[in-house]
């Protein structure tokens, strides 16, 4: 009985200590980001890996999401003779929820996993230790630029996702089905207010932080083996997905 209680206690302490380590990792990465010299070149490079390289997959998924919303929205709204609301339904759904969340998923799968695997391999092949021995702080050199790049790239990707998604919904709603182009756009412009755009962009900034933070942490602290790298990659993707959805709920309830 005592050993059972001890095991529960050990488990709880480990979990809380793990959360504390993750948080301290984030704090030190953010603090080091402000310390000179600023690694501008690295930030630009990571904006390329996070933003530009994910652009095609984000654009494609955005287009198809918009087209599906066009079909589904049309099908549901037609029951109330409200097809003209298709534009506003799509735009609100994309701007507030689907755009930030789905593009964050895409970036997690496309870039976050690669990030965790890269840092995990660096850990396994002792490159991170080599950086320490050269008196280069690996968190400043490897993690901070990625987090800043994530904060910059995610809102831009989300905006692109939204615009392409709206276009996809336009193609289906106006091009294939019988919604008029005028009511599609005027409905959209009348019902969307700045707060919708703002809350979606705020979400995407938070998701950019979550993805880079979790994936860097998991890769950085991978156990230095081949299985350790694979485990770190898996954990980083799963944890990022879960945190994105949970945090999305909280942000929605705060900002609605």
């Amino acid at each position: 009985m005592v050993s059972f209680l001890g095991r529960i206690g050990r488990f709880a302490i480990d979990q809380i200590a793990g959360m504390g380590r993750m948080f301290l990792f984030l704090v030190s990465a953010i603090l080091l980001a402000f310390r000179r010299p600023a690694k501008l070149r690295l930030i630009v490079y990571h904006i390329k890996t996070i933003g530009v390289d994910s652009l095609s997959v984000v654009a494609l998924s955005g287009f198809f999401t918009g087209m599906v919303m066009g079909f589904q929205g049309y099908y549901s709204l037609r029951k109330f003779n409200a097809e003209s609301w298709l534009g506003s339904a799509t735009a609100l759904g994309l701007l507030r929820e689907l755009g930030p969340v789905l593009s964050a998923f895409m970036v997690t799968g496309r870039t976050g996993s690669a990030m965790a695997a890269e840092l995990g391999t660096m850990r396994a092949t002792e490159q991170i230790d080599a950086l320490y021995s050269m008196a280069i702080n690996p968190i400043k050199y490897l993690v901070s630029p990625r987090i800043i790049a994530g904060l910059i790239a995610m809102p831009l990707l989300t905006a692109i996702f939204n615009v392409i998604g709206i276009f996809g919904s336009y193609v289906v709603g106006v091009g294939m089905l019988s919604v008029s182009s005028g009511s599609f756009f005027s409905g959209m412009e009348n019902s969307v207010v700045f707060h919708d755009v703002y809350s979606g962009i705020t979400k995407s900034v938070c998701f950019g932080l979550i993805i880079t933070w979790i994936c860097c942490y998991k890769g950085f602290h991978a156990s230095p083996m081949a299985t350790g790298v694979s485990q770190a990659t898996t954990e980083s993707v799963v944890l990022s997905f879960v945190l994105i959805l949970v945090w999305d709920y909280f942000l929605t309830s705060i900002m609605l």
Partner: protein
Amino acid sequence: MNHSRTDIIVGMFVLIGAICLGYLAIRLGKVELFGATGYVVYADFSSIAGLKIGDPTEIAGVRVGKVESLGLADDRARIVLRIDPQIKLQEDVIASVRARGLIGDKFVLITPGGSDKIIPPGGKIRETESPQDITDLIGKFIGGDLTSKKEEK
């Protein structure tokens, strides 16, 4: 100064993203980049149920401004309208809150007047007409004059 390929590609990405962001914020979010243009006028209503900030203000179906803020003044609803600068409102215009269709979006309709005097910026529209409440109307229709008599007491 020569830039690497990465710089140029990232520059293009940031530009495209910024354009999309700008489209969403300015076209859909209706953010005014260069400050708000036009002048404001007030109007007091006994009810503005359903009106939202940003709803259009129209004369004869043409958009001439929007609702800038909603508030209370002496138990009446006070709305602030931002009117395009080239539009002149006569002193005896009538502002009314209307709905598009039976349950559609609300907007403020301004019916032009005949006076020579123009409402100055910051002035007040005196004549207003509150929206007909659809449930009220149905109540009157079903219950004859009963409901309206009850209200008058």
